[in-house]
């Protein structure tokens, strides 16, 4: 299994009730699979249009997730 941290911010942190959770994924999971698993675990996230980052870079979905990677799930940004 691949162990990763998943970070949440703003609206997604409120939905999850936490700012960081640990997650185990099958070996060689892709980013899109990881995101699907996170939404499955925290179904209230499905109410939002979600963006997804792996190791502090926006993910296309095809990235292979490795042990210790930092994932992040958040809504469309609204800074400025």
């Amino acid at each position, binding site marked *: 299994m691949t162990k990763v941290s998943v*970070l949440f*911010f*703003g*609206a997604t942190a*409120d939905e999850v009730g936490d700012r960081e959770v640990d997650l185990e994924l099958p070996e060689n999971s892709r980013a899109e699979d990881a995101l699907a698993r996170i939404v499955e675990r925290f179904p209230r996230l499905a109410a*939002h*249009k979600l*963006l997804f*980052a792996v190791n*502090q*870079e*926006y993910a296309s979905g095809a990235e292979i997730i490795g042990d210790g990677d930092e994932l*992040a799930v*958040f*809504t*469309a*940004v*609204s*800074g*400025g």
Partner: protein
Amino acid sequence: MTEEIRDDFYEITAAPLDVGAIARRVVPASCGAIVTLDGFVRQFTRGRETEYLVYEAYEPMALKEMEKLGAAARERFAIECVTIVHRTGRLEIGETSVVIAVAAPHRRAAFEACEWLIKELKSTVPIWKKEVYADGETWIEGAN
């Protein structure tokens, strides 16, 4: 010839922003103009009164995205120096949330780059805004 310039400055901070000091942090000798955008908390948005805002950032990623924007702006515009500072935490009405300052030899490029940078920042840099009203609060979700 692309000479590397090390004076660009990107920061995320919970401390109040001193716009003038940020904009004049670097004044390149080859430049004649600095264009600055000071984005601040407005009292009324869509007719509703805001009590205060809370900004939250995914800090390490936000800094990386700001650096990417600065590098992209240098590619697109004839500018010398980019500064981007964003505040986090609770901001009262009128307080500055973001400062973007661009120094350039000629003002046209500085205006163009500054306007481009704020537009891009608002769509790519992972920072979120919560609007707090007298009767509730809501995290704002961006357009894309």
